[in-house]
Protein backbone atom coordinates (compact mmCIF):
# COMPACT_ATOMS: atom_id res chain seq x y z
CA UNK A 1 0.00 0.00 0.00
CA UNK A 2 2.83 2.39 0.89
CA UNK A 3 4.29 2.16 -2.59
CA UNK A 4 1.06 3.64 -3.97
CA UNK A 5 1.28 6.81 -1.89
CA UNK A 6 2.55 9.67 -4.06
CA UNK A 7 5.69 11.27 -2.74
CA UNK A 8 4.46 14.63 -3.86
CA UNK A 9 0.89 15.86 -4.36
CA UNK A 10 -0.34 15.35 -7.91
CA UNK A 11 -1.21 19.04 -8.08
CA UNK A 12 2.19 20.27 -6.88
CA UNK A 13 3.37 20.84 -10.46
CA UNK A 14 0.27 22.79 -11.50
CA UNK A 15 0.93 26.53 -11.56
CA UNK A 16 -2.61 27.87 -11.93
CA UNK A 17 -6.01 26.25 -11.33
CA UNK A 18 -9.14 27.84 -12.67
CA UNK A 19 -12.76 26.72 -12.67
CA UNK A 20 -15.35 27.33 -15.38
CA UNK A 21 -18.79 27.73 -13.79
CA UNK A 22 -22.34 28.67 -14.67
CA UNK A 23 -25.63 28.61 -12.86
CA UNK A 24 -27.30 27.58 -16.11
CA UNK A 25 -27.02 24.51 -18.34
CA UNK A 26 -26.27 24.65 -22.04
CA UNK A 27 -24.58 28.07 -22.03
CA UNK A 28 -21.18 26.83 -23.24
CA UNK A 29 -19.00 26.04 -20.23
CA UNK A 30 -17.33 23.07 -21.91
CA UNK A 31 -16.93 25.08 -25.12
CA UNK A 32 -15.22 27.91 -23.26
CA UNK A 33 -13.05 25.43 -21.30
CA UNK A 34 -11.99 23.75 -24.55
CA UNK A 35 -11.27 26.95 -26.48
CA UNK A 36 -9.42 28.45 -23.52
CA UNK A 37 -7.20 25.35 -23.37
CA UNK A 38 -6.53 25.52 -27.12
CA UNK A 39 -5.71 29.25 -26.94
CA UNK A 40 -3.38 28.79 -24.00
CA UNK A 41 -1.64 25.97 -25.84
CA UNK A 42 -1.18 28.30 -28.81
CA UNK A 43 0.61 30.67 -26.44
CA UNK A 44 2.99 27.86 -25.55
CA UNK A 45 1.38 26.76 -22.29
CA UNK A 46 0.86 23.22 -20.99
CA UNK A 47 -2.80 22.77 -20.05
CA UNK A 48 -4.89 20.14 -18.33
CA UNK A 49 -8.68 19.93 -18.24
CA UNK A 50 -10.45 18.18 -15.38
CA UNK A 51 -14.06 17.46 -16.38
CA UNK A 52 -16.16 17.07 -13.24
CA UNK A 53 -19.49 16.88 -15.09
CA UNK A 54 -20.21 13.28 -14.16
CA UNK A 55 -23.68 13.05 -15.74
CA UNK A 56 -22.89 14.81 -19.01
CA UNK A 57 -19.13 14.68 -19.70
CA UNK A 58 -18.54 16.66 -22.91
CA UNK A 59 -14.78 17.26 -22.88
CA UNK A 60 -13.42 14.00 -24.41
CA UNK A 61 -15.42 14.38 -27.62
CA UNK A 62 -14.43 18.04 -27.99
CA UNK A 63 -10.83 16.82 -28.42
CA UNK A 64 -11.71 13.74 -30.48
CA UNK A 65 -10.37 11.36 -27.82
CA UNK A 66 -13.68 9.93 -26.65
CA UNK A 67 -12.63 6.30 -27.06
CA UNK A 68 -9.44 6.56 -25.00
CA UNK A 69 -8.63 4.45 -21.96
CA UNK A 70 -7.18 5.69 -18.71
CA UNK A 71 -4.03 3.97 -17.46
CA UNK A 72 -2.57 3.83 -13.99
CA UNK A 73 0.94 4.73 -12.86
CA UNK A 74 2.67 4.83 -9.48
CA UNK A 75 1.20 8.19 -8.52
CA UNK A 76 -2.32 7.49 -9.75
CA UNK A 77 -4.19 7.91 -13.02
CA UNK A 78 -2.45 9.02 -16.18
CA UNK A 79 -4.44 11.77 -17.91
CA UNK A 80 -5.33 11.33 -21.57
CA UNK A 81 -3.10 13.37 -23.89
CA UNK A 82 -4.76 14.86 -26.96
CA UNK A 83 -1.57 15.28 -28.95
CA UNK A 84 1.91 13.83 -29.37
CA UNK A 85 3.50 16.89 -27.78
CA UNK A 86 1.47 16.22 -24.62
CA UNK A 87 0.55 19.89 -24.42
CA UNK A 88 -3.09 19.24 -23.46
CA UNK A 89 -4.15 16.47 -21.10
CA UNK A 90 -7.63 15.52 -19.95
CA UNK A 91 -9.44 13.59 -17.26
CA UNK A 92 -13.16 12.85 -17.45
CA UNK A 93 -15.61 10.18 -16.35
CA UNK A 94 -16.24 9.84 -20.07
CA UNK A 95 -13.02 7.79 -20.31
CA UNK A 96 -14.09 5.46 -17.52
CA UNK A 97 -17.47 4.39 -18.89
CA UNK A 98 -17.66 0.96 -20.48
CA UNK A 99 -20.59 1.95 -22.65
CA UNK A 100 -20.64 5.67 -23.57
CA UNK A 101 -24.45 5.82 -23.67
CA UNK A 102 -24.82 4.43 -20.15
CA UNK A 103 -26.23 6.96 -17.72
CA UNK A 104 -24.27 7.67 -14.54
CA UNK A 105 -27.17 7.60 -12.13
CA UNK A 106 -25.41 8.49 -8.91
CA UNK A 107 -26.56 10.41 -5.90
CA UNK A 108 -24.39 13.04 -4.26
CA UNK A 109 -22.13 10.93 -2.02
CA UNK A 110 -20.92 8.71 -4.85
CA UNK A 111 -20.29 11.75 -7.06
CA UNK A 112 -18.35 13.40 -4.23
CA UNK A 113 -16.12 10.36 -3.82
CA UNK A 114 -15.12 10.33 -7.49
CA UNK A 115 -14.50 14.07 -7.53
CA UNK A 116 -12.16 13.75 -4.54
CA UNK A 117 -10.28 11.05 -6.46
CA UNK A 118 -10.19 13.15 -9.61
CA UNK A 119 -8.67 16.05 -7.71
CA UNK A 120 -6.10 14.00 -5.79
CA UNK A 121 -5.24 11.02 -7.97
CA UNK A 122 -4.58 12.29 -11.49
CA UNK A 123 -0.86 12.45 -12.23
CA UNK A 124 -0.88 15.77 -14.11
CA UNK A 125 2.85 16.37 -13.87
CA UNK A 126 3.89 19.93 -14.64
CA UNK A 127 1.11 22.15 -15.99
CA UNK A 128 0.84 25.89 -16.52
CA UNK A 129 -2.95 25.74 -16.20
CA UNK A 130 -5.49 23.23 -14.93
CA UNK A 131 -8.98 24.13 -16.14
CA UNK A 132 -11.83 22.53 -14.18
CA UNK A 133 -15.00 22.20 -16.27
CA UNK A 134 -18.15 21.83 -14.16
CA UNK A 135 -21.82 20.89 -14.65
CA UNK A 136 -24.41 23.64 -14.14
CA UNK A 137 -25.53 24.44 -10.59
CA UNK A 138 -24.34 25.00 -7.06
CA UNK A 139 -24.53 21.52 -5.62
CA UNK A 140 -22.51 18.42 -4.79
CA UNK A 141 -20.01 18.61 -7.63
CA UNK A 142 -19.29 22.28 -6.99
CA UNK A 143 -19.06 22.06 -3.22
CA UNK A 144 -16.82 19.00 -3.37
CA UNK A 145 -14.58 20.38 -6.11
CA UNK A 146 -14.00 23.69 -4.32
CA UNK A 147 -13.37 21.92 -1.00
CA UNK A 148 -10.90 19.48 -2.55
CA UNK A 149 -9.08 22.26 -4.44
CA UNK A 150 -8.92 24.72 -1.54
CA UNK A 151 -5.45 23.63 -0.27
CA UNK A 152 -4.07 24.28 -3.76
CA UNK A 153 -5.31 27.88 -3.86
CA UNK A 154 -7.16 28.07 -7.20
CA UNK A 155 -6.68 31.25 -9.21
CA UNK A 156 -10.43 31.70 -9.45
CA UNK A 157 -13.45 31.10 -11.63
CA UNK A 158 -14.70 32.16 -15.04
CA UNK A 159 -18.49 32.38 -15.17
CA UNK A 160 -20.30 31.74 -18.44
CA UNK A 161 -23.75 33.05 -19.28
CA UNK A 162 -25.83 33.66 -22.37
CA UNK A 163 -27.19 37.20 -22.74
CA UNK A 164 -30.77 36.59 -21.64
CA UNK A 165 -32.21 37.40 -18.26
CA UNK A 166 -33.20 33.79 -17.63
CA UNK A 167 -29.54 32.74 -17.85
CA UNK A 168 -28.19 35.78 -16.02
CA UNK A 169 -30.69 35.08 -13.23
CA UNK A 170 -28.99 31.76 -12.51
CA UNK A 171 -25.46 33.09 -12.93
CA UNK A 172 -26.15 35.71 -10.24
CA UNK A 173 -26.59 32.79 -7.87
CA UNK A 174 -23.32 31.30 -9.08
CA UNK A 175 -21.63 34.60 -8.17
CA UNK A 176 -23.02 34.22 -4.65
CA UNK A 177 -21.60 30.68 -4.58
CA UNK A 178 -18.17 32.09 -5.43
CA UNK A 179 -18.46 34.73 -2.72
CA UNK A 180 -19.55 32.23 -0.09
CA UNK A 181 -16.81 29.74 -0.94
CA UNK A 182 -14.04 32.33 -1.24
CA UNK A 183 -13.49 31.71 -4.95
CA UNK A 184 -12.27 34.79 -6.81
CA UNK A 185 -14.25 35.67 -9.93
CA UNK A 186 -11.79 36.16 -12.79
CA UNK A 187 -14.60 37.39 -14.99
CA UNK A 188 -17.86 36.78 -16.84
CA UNK A 189 -18.13 35.60 -20.45
CA UNK A 190 -21.28 36.43 -22.41
CA UNK A 191 -21.56 33.47 -24.78
CA UNK A 192 -23.93 32.99 -27.75
CA UNK A 193 -24.00 36.79 -27.96
CA UNK A 194 -25.38 37.61 -31.37
CA UNK A 195 -25.37 35.75 -34.66
CA UNK A 196 -24.06 37.14 -37.93
CA UNK A 197 -25.83 35.57 -40.88
CA UNK A 198 -23.17 34.02 -43.16
CA UNK A 199 -25.34 34.81 -46.19
CA UNK A 200 -26.13 38.50 -45.70
CA UNK A 201 -24.10 39.56 -42.61
CA UNK A 202 -27.21 40.72 -40.75
CA UNK A 203 -26.68 40.41 -37.00
CA UNK A 204 -29.55 38.93 -34.98
CA UNK A 205 -29.48 38.78 -31.19
CA UNK A 206 -31.08 35.35 -30.95
CA UNK A 207 -30.58 35.09 -27.20
CA UNK A 208 -30.81 38.84 -26.58
CA UNK A 209 -27.70 40.96 -25.84
CA UNK A 210 -25.83 42.61 -23.03
CA UNK A 211 -27.05 40.65 -20.01
CA UNK A 212 -23.61 39.25 -19.19
CA UNK A 213 -21.91 42.62 -19.46
CA UNK A 214 -24.57 44.26 -17.27
CA UNK A 215 -24.19 41.54 -14.67
CA UNK A 216 -20.41 42.02 -14.56
CA UNK A 217 -20.89 45.74 -14.06
CA UNK A 218 -23.57 45.25 -11.40
CA UNK A 219 -21.48 42.69 -9.52
CA UNK A 220 -18.20 44.59 -9.86
CA UNK A 221 -16.36 41.75 -11.60
CA UNK A 222 -14.33 41.87 -14.83
CA UNK A 223 -16.18 41.40 -18.11
CA UNK A 224 -14.14 39.09 -20.34
CA UNK A 225 -16.13 39.69 -23.52
CA UNK A 226 -18.95 38.60 -25.81
CA UNK A 227 -18.55 35.43 -27.86
CA UNK A 228 -20.92 35.33 -30.86
CA UNK A 229 -22.78 32.25 -32.11
CA UNK A 230 -20.52 30.75 -34.75
CA UNK A 231 -21.57 27.65 -36.71
CA UNK A 232 -17.90 26.98 -37.52
CA UNK A 233 -17.17 26.83 -33.78
CA UNK A 234 -20.04 24.39 -33.21
CA UNK A 235 -18.87 22.28 -36.15
CA UNK A 236 -15.30 22.35 -34.86
CA UNK A 237 -16.38 21.09 -31.45
CA UNK A 238 -18.45 18.35 -33.05
CA UNK A 239 -15.40 17.10 -34.89
CA UNK A 240 -12.93 17.60 -32.06
CA UNK A 241 -10.84 19.99 -34.13
CA UNK A 242 -8.56 22.83 -33.02
CA UNK A 243 -10.77 25.86 -33.77
CA UNK A 244 -8.06 28.29 -32.60
CA UNK A 245 -5.49 26.83 -34.99
CA UNK A 246 -7.77 26.18 -37.96
CA UNK A 247 -10.31 29.02 -37.97
CA UNK A 248 -8.54 32.25 -36.96
CA UNK A 249 -10.81 34.26 -39.31
CA UNK A 250 -14.04 32.90 -37.89
CA UNK A 251 -16.36 35.24 -35.98
CA UNK A 252 -15.83 33.70 -32.53
CA UNK A 253 -12.01 33.69 -32.77
CA UNK A 254 -11.21 37.25 -31.63
CA UNK A 255 -13.34 36.99 -28.49
CA UNK A 256 -11.98 33.56 -27.55
CA UNK A 257 -8.38 34.65 -28.10
CA UNK A 258 -9.04 37.76 -26.03
CA UNK A 259 -10.39 35.74 -23.09
CA UNK A 260 -7.22 33.65 -23.02
CA UNK A 261 -5.05 36.78 -23.25
CA UNK A 262 -6.85 38.38 -20.32
CA UNK A 263 -6.28 35.23 -18.24
CA UNK A 264 -2.58 35.24 -19.19
CA UNK A 265 -2.26 38.95 -18.40
CA UNK A 266 -3.92 38.32 -15.06
CA UNK A 267 -1.47 35.58 -14.12
CA UNK A 268 1.63 37.55 -15.16
CA UNK A 269 0.36 40.50 -13.11
CA UNK A 270 -0.12 38.14 -10.19
CA UNK A 271 3.46 36.81 -10.32
CA UNK A 272 4.99 40.28 -10.60
Amino acid at each position, binding site marked *: LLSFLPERSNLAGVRHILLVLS*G*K*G*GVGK*STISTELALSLRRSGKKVGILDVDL*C*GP*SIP*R*MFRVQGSDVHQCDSGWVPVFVDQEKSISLMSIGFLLEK*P*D*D*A*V*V*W*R*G*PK*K*NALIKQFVADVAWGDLDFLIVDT*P*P*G*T*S*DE*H*ISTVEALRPYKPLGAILVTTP*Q*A*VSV*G*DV*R*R*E*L*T*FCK*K*TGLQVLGIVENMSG*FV*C*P*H*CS*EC*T*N*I*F*SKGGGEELAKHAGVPFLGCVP*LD*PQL*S*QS*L*EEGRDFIQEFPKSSAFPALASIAQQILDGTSQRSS
Partner: protein
Amino acid sequence: QVALLDIDICGPSIPKMMGLEGEQVHQSGSGWSPVYVEENLGVMSVGFLLSSPDDAVIWRGPKKNGLIKQFLRDVDWGEVDYLIVDTPPGTSDEHLSIVQYLSATHIDGAVIITTPQEVSLQDVRKEINFCQKVKLPIIGVVENMSGFICPKCKNESQIFPPTTGGAEKMCQNLNVCLLGKVPLDPQIGKSCDKGQSFLSEAPESPATSSYRNIIQRIQEYCDQRHSHEEKII
Protein backbone atom coordinates in the same frame (compact mmCIF):
# COMPACT_ATOMS: atom_id res chain seq x y z
CA GLN B 1 -56.19 22.55 -14.91
CA VAL B 2 -52.40 22.59 -15.08
CA ALA B 3 -49.71 22.47 -12.40
CA LEU B 4 -46.09 23.35 -13.21
CA LEU B 5 -43.54 22.11 -10.69
CA ASP B 6 -39.98 23.41 -11.02
CA ILE B 7 -37.54 21.01 -9.35
CA ASP B 8 -34.41 22.78 -10.61
CA ILE B 9 -33.36 23.76 -7.11
CA CYS B 10 -30.09 25.48 -8.04
CA GLY B 11 -31.32 27.24 -11.16
CA PRO B 12 -35.07 27.91 -10.87
CA SER B 13 -36.05 29.62 -14.11
CA ILE B 14 -39.79 29.02 -14.12
CA PRO B 15 -40.89 32.02 -11.97
CA LYS B 16 -39.24 34.51 -14.33
CA MET B 17 -40.56 32.75 -17.45
CA MET B 18 -44.08 32.81 -16.07
CA GLY B 19 -43.92 36.51 -15.11
CA LEU B 20 -44.07 35.57 -11.42
CA GLU B 21 -40.73 36.93 -10.19
CA GLY B 22 -40.96 38.29 -6.68
CA GLU B 23 -44.04 36.28 -5.77
CA GLN B 24 -44.03 34.45 -2.47
CA VAL B 25 -45.59 31.17 -1.39
CA HIS B 26 -48.50 31.39 1.06
CA GLN B 27 -49.35 28.76 3.65
CA SER B 28 -52.86 27.74 4.52
CA GLY B 29 -54.49 25.00 6.55
CA SER B 30 -54.29 22.66 3.59
CA GLY B 31 -50.61 23.29 2.90
CA TRP B 32 -48.56 25.51 0.56
CA SER B 33 -50.49 27.38 -2.03
CA PRO B 34 -49.13 27.31 -5.58
CA VAL B 35 -48.65 30.68 -7.25
CA TYR B 36 -51.26 31.11 -9.96
CA VAL B 37 -50.53 32.60 -13.39
CA GLU B 38 -54.14 32.03 -14.38
CA GLU B 39 -56.96 30.33 -12.54
CA ASN B 40 -56.08 27.09 -14.26
CA LEU B 41 -52.27 27.33 -14.17
CA GLY B 42 -50.51 27.03 -10.80
CA VAL B 43 -46.75 27.06 -10.32
CA MET B 44 -44.34 25.98 -7.59
CA SER B 45 -40.59 26.62 -7.51
CA VAL B 46 -37.82 27.16 -4.97
CA GLY B 47 -37.56 30.56 -6.65
CA PHE B 48 -40.61 31.66 -4.65
CA LEU B 49 -38.89 30.76 -1.40
CA LEU B 50 -35.81 32.92 -2.00
CA SER B 51 -35.83 36.53 -0.82
CA SER B 52 -33.29 37.95 -3.29
CA PRO B 53 -32.35 37.20 -6.91
CA ASP B 54 -28.76 36.77 -5.69
CA ASP B 55 -29.65 34.06 -3.16
CA ALA B 56 -27.89 30.82 -4.03
CA VAL B 57 -29.16 27.41 -3.00
CA ILE B 58 -25.90 25.66 -2.17
CA TRP B 59 -27.27 22.30 -1.10
CA ARG B 60 -26.04 18.75 -1.41
CA GLY B 61 -28.32 16.01 -2.69
CA PRO B 62 -30.19 14.97 0.48
CA LYS B 63 -31.39 18.51 1.22
CA LYS B 64 -32.58 18.95 -2.37
CA ASN B 65 -34.47 15.65 -2.13
CA GLY B 66 -36.15 16.85 1.07
CA LEU B 67 -37.51 19.95 -0.64
CA ILE B 68 -38.73 17.98 -3.64
CA LYS B 69 -40.62 15.67 -1.27
CA GLN B 70 -42.20 18.72 0.38
CA PHE B 71 -43.20 20.14 -2.99
CA LEU B 72 -45.06 16.92 -3.76
CA ARG B 73 -46.52 16.32 -0.31
CA ASP B 74 -47.26 19.78 1.07
CA VAL B 75 -48.41 21.79 -1.94
CA ASP B 76 -52.18 22.01 -2.21
CA TRP B 77 -52.51 21.56 -5.97
CA GLY B 78 -56.20 20.68 -5.89
CA GLU B 79 -57.68 18.72 -8.80
CA VAL B 80 -55.22 18.82 -11.67
CA ASP B 81 -55.40 17.52 -15.24
CA TYR B 82 -51.66 17.86 -15.95
CA LEU B 83 -48.71 18.06 -13.57
CA ILE B 84 -45.65 19.12 -15.53
CA VAL B 85 -42.30 18.73 -13.77
CA ASP B 86 -39.37 20.79 -15.07
CA THR B 87 -36.00 19.28 -14.15
CA PRO B 88 -32.36 20.41 -14.15
CA PRO B 89 -29.89 18.77 -16.55
CA GLY B 90 -28.42 15.44 -15.45
CA THR B 91 -29.32 12.03 -14.10
CA SER B 92 -28.83 12.51 -10.40
CA ASP B 93 -30.59 13.21 -7.11
CA GLU B 94 -33.45 15.33 -8.44
CA HIS B 95 -34.25 12.86 -11.20
CA LEU B 96 -34.04 9.76 -9.02
CA SER B 97 -36.07 11.38 -6.29
CA ILE B 98 -38.91 12.66 -8.44
CA VAL B 99 -39.34 9.24 -10.06
CA GLN B 100 -39.18 7.53 -6.68
CA TYR B 101 -41.60 9.89 -4.95
CA LEU B 102 -44.09 9.70 -7.81
CA SER B 103 -43.88 5.91 -8.08
CA ALA B 104 -46.94 5.48 -5.85
CA THR B 105 -48.99 7.32 -8.44
CA HIS B 106 -48.41 6.96 -12.16
CA ILE B 107 -46.19 9.03 -14.43
CA ASP B 108 -47.45 9.20 -18.02
CA GLY B 109 -43.92 9.69 -19.22
CA ALA B 110 -41.03 11.97 -19.95
CA VAL B 111 -40.44 14.48 -22.71
CA ILE B 112 -36.74 14.77 -23.44
CA ILE B 113 -35.26 17.93 -24.94
CA THR B 114 -32.10 18.09 -27.04
CA THR B 115 -30.39 20.41 -29.49
CA PRO B 116 -29.26 18.96 -32.85
CA GLN B 117 -25.54 18.51 -32.25
CA GLU B 118 -23.77 15.35 -31.13
CA VAL B 119 -22.42 17.12 -28.04
CA SER B 120 -26.03 17.38 -26.87
CA LEU B 121 -27.20 14.02 -28.21
CA GLN B 122 -24.44 12.15 -26.39
CA ASP B 123 -25.88 13.38 -23.09
CA VAL B 124 -29.47 12.80 -24.19
CA ARG B 125 -28.74 9.16 -24.96
CA LYS B 126 -27.75 8.89 -21.30
CA GLU B 127 -31.01 10.54 -20.28
CA ILE B 128 -32.91 8.01 -22.39
CA ASN B 129 -30.88 5.26 -20.73
CA PHE B 130 -31.81 6.72 -17.33
CA CYS B 131 -35.51 6.57 -18.22
CA GLN B 132 -35.15 2.96 -19.27
CA LYS B 133 -33.26 2.08 -16.07
CA VAL B 134 -35.96 3.57 -13.82
CA LYS B 135 -38.79 2.32 -16.07
CA LEU B 136 -39.99 5.80 -16.92
CA PRO B 137 -41.92 5.71 -20.22
CA ILE B 138 -40.62 8.11 -22.86
CA ILE B 139 -43.31 10.15 -24.57
CA GLY B 140 -40.74 11.41 -27.02
CA VAL B 141 -37.85 13.72 -27.86
CA VAL B 142 -37.99 17.37 -28.91
CA GLU B 143 -35.18 18.81 -31.04
CA ASN B 144 -34.87 22.41 -29.89
CA MET B 145 -32.85 25.22 -31.53
CA SER B 146 -33.27 23.35 -34.79
CA GLY B 147 -32.12 25.80 -37.43
CA PHE B 148 -32.36 29.58 -37.71
CA ILE B 149 -33.97 31.59 -40.49
CA CYS B 150 -32.39 34.99 -40.96
CA PRO B 151 -35.11 37.63 -40.67
CA LYS B 152 -33.42 39.69 -43.41
CA CYS B 153 -32.46 37.28 -46.19
CA LYS B 154 -34.60 34.29 -45.09
CA ASN B 155 -31.71 31.87 -45.56
CA GLU B 156 -31.45 29.05 -43.02
CA SER B 157 -28.35 28.47 -40.89
CA GLN B 158 -27.66 25.40 -38.79
CA ILE B 159 -26.09 27.10 -35.81
CA PHE B 160 -26.00 23.82 -33.90
CA PRO B 161 -25.25 21.45 -36.77
CA PRO B 162 -26.72 17.93 -36.69
CA THR B 163 -23.39 16.36 -37.65
CA THR B 164 -24.54 12.87 -36.62
CA GLY B 165 -28.08 13.09 -37.96
CA GLY B 166 -29.66 15.11 -35.17
CA ALA B 167 -32.48 13.92 -32.96
CA GLU B 168 -34.15 12.25 -35.93
CA LYS B 169 -31.35 9.71 -36.40
CA MET B 170 -30.95 9.17 -32.65
CA CYS B 171 -34.68 8.52 -32.25
CA GLN B 172 -34.62 6.04 -35.13
CA ASN B 173 -31.65 4.22 -33.61
CA LEU B 174 -33.15 4.08 -30.14
CA ASN B 175 -36.74 3.43 -31.23
CA VAL B 176 -38.04 6.52 -29.50
CA CYS B 177 -40.60 8.98 -30.86
CA LEU B 178 -39.44 12.33 -32.29
CA LEU B 179 -42.19 14.71 -31.20
CA GLY B 180 -40.97 17.59 -33.31
CA LYS B 181 -38.33 20.21 -34.04
CA VAL B 182 -38.44 23.80 -32.79
CA PRO B 183 -36.47 26.43 -34.74
CA LEU B 184 -34.57 29.28 -33.11
CA ASP B 185 -36.63 32.46 -32.82
CA PRO B 186 -35.30 35.50 -30.95
CA GLN B 187 -38.82 36.20 -29.74
CA ILE B 188 -38.78 33.02 -27.63
CA GLY B 189 -35.95 34.24 -25.41
CA LYS B 190 -37.49 37.72 -25.26
CA SER B 191 -40.87 36.40 -24.16
CA CYS B 192 -39.29 34.18 -21.51
CA ASP B 193 -37.24 37.06 -20.19
CA LYS B 194 -40.35 39.26 -19.98
CA GLY B 195 -42.43 36.49 -18.45
CA GLN B 196 -44.93 36.52 -21.30
CA SER B 197 -46.43 33.70 -23.31
CA PHE B 198 -44.47 33.29 -26.55
CA LEU B 199 -47.43 31.45 -28.09
CA SER B 200 -49.62 34.53 -27.52
CA GLU B 201 -46.93 37.08 -28.43
CA ALA B 202 -45.85 35.45 -31.68
CA PRO B 203 -48.76 33.37 -33.02
CA GLU B 204 -47.42 33.48 -36.59
CA SER B 205 -43.93 32.24 -35.78
CA PRO B 206 -42.90 28.85 -37.24
CA ALA B 207 -41.73 28.03 -33.71
CA THR B 208 -45.30 28.51 -32.45
CA SER B 209 -46.72 25.94 -34.86
CA SER B 210 -43.87 23.58 -33.91
CA TYR B 211 -44.69 23.96 -30.22
CA ARG B 212 -48.41 23.49 -30.83
CA ASN B 213 -47.87 20.32 -32.84
CA ILE B 214 -45.60 18.89 -30.18
CA ILE B 215 -48.06 19.75 -27.41
CA GLN B 216 -50.89 18.15 -29.34
CA ARG B 217 -48.90 14.94 -29.74
CA ILE B 218 -48.15 14.90 -26.01
CA GLN B 219 -51.84 15.34 -25.21
CA GLU B 220 -52.77 12.55 -27.61
CA TYR B 221 -50.23 10.27 -25.97
CA CYS B 222 -51.62 11.03 -22.51
CA ASP B 223 -55.24 10.60 -23.67
CA GLN B 224 -54.37 7.23 -25.20
CA ARG B 225 -52.69 6.01 -22.03
CA HIS B 226 -55.60 7.24 -19.96
CA SER B 227 -58.25 5.47 -22.02
CA HIS B 228 -56.06 2.35 -22.17
CA GLU B 229 -55.89 2.29 -18.37
CA GLU B 230 -59.63 2.81 -18.09
CA LYS B 231 -60.20 -0.16 -20.39
CA ILE B 232 -58.08 -2.33 -18.10
CA ILE B 233 -60.10 -1.26 -15.06
